[in-house]
Every structure is written in structure tokens, then in C-alpha cells.
């Protein structure tokens, strides 16, 4: 299983994904230098990503806390999420995300 992560230069990376891991952990484990300063506790907004709209329906809605924390991110759009709050499941095999400004 894998996810596709598009970096700030537009380069696509196919990353091995493990069930139950957050997308933030999957990205970090791959060696991509994501900031994720709070370590995954939804407290810093430095793991901001854009989720490909095609995948939106397969991912649980963000919590109020996550929506609030996104106020600390830049260039937030409807596709914005915090990577530490999306947990990988089999259904997300092939998930495509793009790193946002301020997360690397």
C-alpha cells in the first residue's frame, strides 16, 4: 500500500504506507523533511497538506480542533488538512496529497 506525496517542487513521491499511521508519520518516515513540530498532537499546523479532491469522501471530516488549528497555516483552501489527523486505512491506498507552504 502507498500514498502519493507531491512536494513543494511539484515532484511526486510514492511512499510506502502502513495502516493506522497518520499521513504525517508516513511522510516523515519516508525521509521527506516535514516540520510537524508538535509531533502529531494537532497543536502547531506545520503538517499542512492539500488532499486531492478525488479522495475527500474517503477521509473522515476534520474535527473542530483541526479546523481551528488550520488558522495557523497559510494558503488554506477547501482541500487543506493537517496530515497528523488523517489516519491511513486500506481504503486510502493510493491517496494523493500535496505539501503546503510552511510545512517543510
Amino acid at each position, binding site marked *: 500500500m502507498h500514498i502519493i506525496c507531491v512536494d513543494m517542487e511539484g515532484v511526486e513521491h510514492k511512499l510506502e504506507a502502513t495502516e493506522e499511521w497518520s499521513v504525517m508519520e508516513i511522510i516523515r518516515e519516508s525521509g521527506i523533511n516535514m*516540520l510537524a*513540530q*508538535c*509531533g502529531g*498532537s494537532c*497543536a*502547531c*499546523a*506545520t503538517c499542512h497538506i492539500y488532499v486531492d479532491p478525488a479522495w475527500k469522501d474517503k477521509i473522515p471530516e476534520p474535527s473542530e480542533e483541526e*479546523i*481551528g488549528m*488550520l*488558522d*495557523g*497555516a*497559510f*494558503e*488554506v483552501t*477547501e482541500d487543506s488538512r493537517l496530515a497528523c489527523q488523517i489516519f491511513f486505512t486500506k481504503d486510502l491506498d493510493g491517496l494523493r496529497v500535496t505539501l503546503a*507552504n*510552511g510545512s517543510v
Partner: protein
Amino acid sequence: MSAAELHTPIQTDVVIVGAGPIGLFAVFELGLYDMKCHLIDILDRAGGQCAELYPEKPIYDIPAVPVCTGTELVDRLMEQIKPFDPAFHFGQMAEKMEKTADGKWRVTTDRGTILEAPVVVLAAGGGSFVPKKMPLKGIDAYEGKSVFYAVRQMEAFRGKKIVISGGGDSALDWAINLQPIAERVTLIHRRDEFRAAPDSVGKMRGLVSEGAMDLVIGNITAVDGQDGQISSITIKESDKDTYVMSCDALLAFYGLTMKLGPVAEFGVTFENELVPVDTATFETNLPGVFAIGDINTYPGKMKLILSGFHEAALMAKKAFTFVHPDRRYRFQYTTSSSNLHGKLGKDE
């Protein structure tokens, strides 16, 4: 003569850079062995990440404390180190470290405080908490001139057309405080909800409905101007085309982020922004300079508060040899040592 030169160096035993949980616990371990500490932190209070990132979030892996919040952990550490009366230098960043003629370390802060000690402990975590900068093209040319991430002097904004970006307490407080003296204040936030004190949100909405200030729900996508003076910003509101709004100053409040900062230039070896240490002593490549907590690295390192506590204890043992070179280190238990009880103020 610069402000820094006007300050008289403060002599102490140990200078700790960073007043997070590990820096605080280091005060305890050092204090047990008669080493007095001065701590420097860029935040205006103790606690580091515990205070800034997760004050209200639960921590479950502190030994013998089934659960406590970041704030509670810091409060308890502050109580625990009280007998050792540490000195805090808050709101300051350790800017320079150099060797003195008599073989001590001199640490100077950006506010001109000078501390001299035989031992320096880097407990700086992920670095200094500094405001997040807007990642807009060419914005660096305006930063500090007409684009700001903090307000030092309100008067500088009198009569100006100010744009304030953000949706938290800082953004709202400054919008409300600057509104009476500015020509016009425009608050821009990505959504029509604000994570700020309800009172401030009410005040801001009142000013907007009175027509005394403007509220725009959208994002800033570009800045324009000349020679450091901003003249306009480009705004994107959802489902609308972008448009340009003129302004004299932009204030952006997106919270804080950790940056390593000047500590990287202290002469201590860094690898990937971390300090390699000897795991017997947690000493760096420089004698008398130690690194504990999230800032260090060694085989098997885990970035946990409990690891940092352990590192502080071993560090203190070696630090003792620099601070009290004429004395023999005597290993004691706080449970049974009347000597330690005395230091902790627990004399029978």
C-alpha cells in the same frame, strides 16, 4: 557603546538555554549538587513546548503521573525546583556564546544580558519560538519595515492604513487596539470564525457593524510595494476573483514556530540541526557545554520528556566536575540523604 556592553556580566554556576521541562528539571539535578542556575528563554514564561504547543493537552507518559497537562507538568516542575531558587531571563534569546579569558563560558542574549559560568546546558528543544512568517514571494524585503509579526510601538501605526491577518487573540487584540489610531484597519481571516476571547470577537464585530473597521474573509496571496514599503496586497476570497487592496502596513499573526536560531553558531557541533552527545555525560564537542532534551541526538534517542529527565541527571554529574573541581562527587538518594534534605528545605 552598545546596550550589551553596558550590562555587567552575571556570574553563576550554570547557564541553561531553554526553560522547557528539561531545562527546568536540570535545575533540580544541578541544585542537588550545589550548582546555581540561570535560565534563558525567548518565551515570556517557563514551559517551552509544554506551555506554547500543548498547555491543555494531556501527557500520559511521565513516570508515576498517570496524566497531567502541559501546564500542570510545568507548574509541578516549577514547584519542585523552588528550593534551588533559579533565576529566569524570559523574553530573551541566547544570541552568542564565547570563551572568557578565565576559561568560563559567556552567554549574551539579544536583550544584552550577559551570563558567565563554567557550564552551559543547551536545553533548547527545537529552537526558539518565533512568529510564523508569511510565505509570500518577496515579502522579506518588507519585513521589519512595513510588514510585521509583532507590534513594538503602537504609535508607528498612527494614521496608517493597516491590514491585519489572522484569526486568533493577537490579530483581534491588535485590530481593536489599533483601530482608534489608524486611518483604517482591515482584518483578514480565512473563515468567519475566530479562535479568540469571546469578548474580543464581540468588540471586533461591533466595530465592523459600526463601520469603524473592515473584515474580509479570505487569504492574502501577494504583497506589492517598493523599497521595503508595502503599497498593496492581493486578496483571494473564496469563489471570487482576486483583487488588490492598498495599505501602508501589514501585520500577520499566525502563531509561533520553532527555529534553531543563533545557538547553531555557538561553536557546538550540529548534525541535521541536532547536537550529537556522549551518552555517559551528555557533553557536546565543547568541554563544559552540554545538550539535553529534544536538541540532542545519539544512537537510540527518543524525543520524550522522560528521556530528557534522565539526560539531565547524568549531565549534572559531569557538570559538577567543572563547577566544583576541588570536590568529589558523592552519589546520594533524596530519600535518605539528610544532606540533600537540607538543600530541599526538608530539614527535620
